[in-house]
């Protein structure tokens, strides 16, 4: 009768699993190291972007160039049509993602609503 042969040093499912999880956890921890190092190294770039913002009096990200209220959400008209609902049908795809309510509010910071109300 054949002996079951020497098994490779007690190879257990949990062994492979724990190694994988351990490795993934190390990688996971490394993402935080990477994040810290990268953002620290990017200080220069951030500074350059900030300098340009200051130099050109910029107010917005150039992320959504489709329409003017998506290019400059902070400067746009308050009540552009169809901006009210996230799932409303919009001409511009990003328009449905940029909420009108995110714009500066009329009454949010003013004590004298009479003076500020557009109506």
């Amino acid at each position: 009768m054949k002996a079951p042969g020497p098994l490779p040093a007690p190879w257990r499912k949990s062994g492979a699993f724990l190694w994988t999880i351990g490795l993934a956890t190390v990688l996971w921890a490394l993402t935080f190291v990477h994040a810290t190092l990268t953002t620290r190294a990017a200080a220069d770039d951030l500074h350059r972007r900030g300098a340009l913002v200051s130099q050109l009096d910029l107010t917005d990200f150039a992320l959504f160039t489709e329409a003017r209220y998506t290019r400059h959400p902070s400067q746009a008209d308050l009540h552009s049509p169809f901006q009210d609902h996230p799932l409303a049908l919009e001409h511009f795809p990003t328009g449905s993602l940029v909420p009108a309510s995110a714009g500066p509010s009329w009454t949010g910071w003013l004590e004298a609503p009479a003076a500020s109300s557009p109506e």
Partner: protein
Amino acid sequence: MIRLEQVSKVFNQGRHNEVRAVRNLSLELDTRGVTVLKGPSGSGKTSLLAMIGCLSRPTSGRIHLEGRLISNLPERFMTEVRRATFGFIFQRFNLIRGLTVLENVMLPAYPLAPDPRELRDQALDLLRQFRLAERAHNQAEWLSGGEAQRTAICRALINRPRILIADEPTANLDSQLSRELLALIGELAEQGKGVLISSHDPLVFDHAQVSRVVELRDGGLA
């Protein structure tokens, strides 16, 4: 020595389908040699085995094992006694599908957390002893009836119990395999293990190794 005092077991107590499986049974059993509980189905022998093996508690009455009261222990301690004292061989083998033969044999030892290498070696030794070495890494559901029963015996022995409990062990085996099984059980008894078997198979209670036959009927001694 296992001593039962006025033991009863009632299922579904108080309901219309109430069953009195064991009634006021008092009995002393030797923990050495082979003891057979003989009786037709419904005579209460399986319920009795389950209570002796700490798988369930009697509805009333007491069970002593070597002078220690075991019938009123909390679950944890009952499990400990069961693990340390009894090995079980079930009628339907009750191997776990999808696991290898080796894993099945090692299962009862998991909660005791022995050294993994020692446990594996011990399990392989047992498998070798029961001519299952080649099957060690096969899935349990691919085994023939005889192999499955031998695997079940290996599993029952892994924690080195003093007493083996076998519930109708020959019910799913042909005569040839039954005889082989009884021979194996006989060997174990010779090595000093106590064996408790429930059966209504004449092959079992007529076997030469049997030291005592207890006949049951309707939940009491016949």
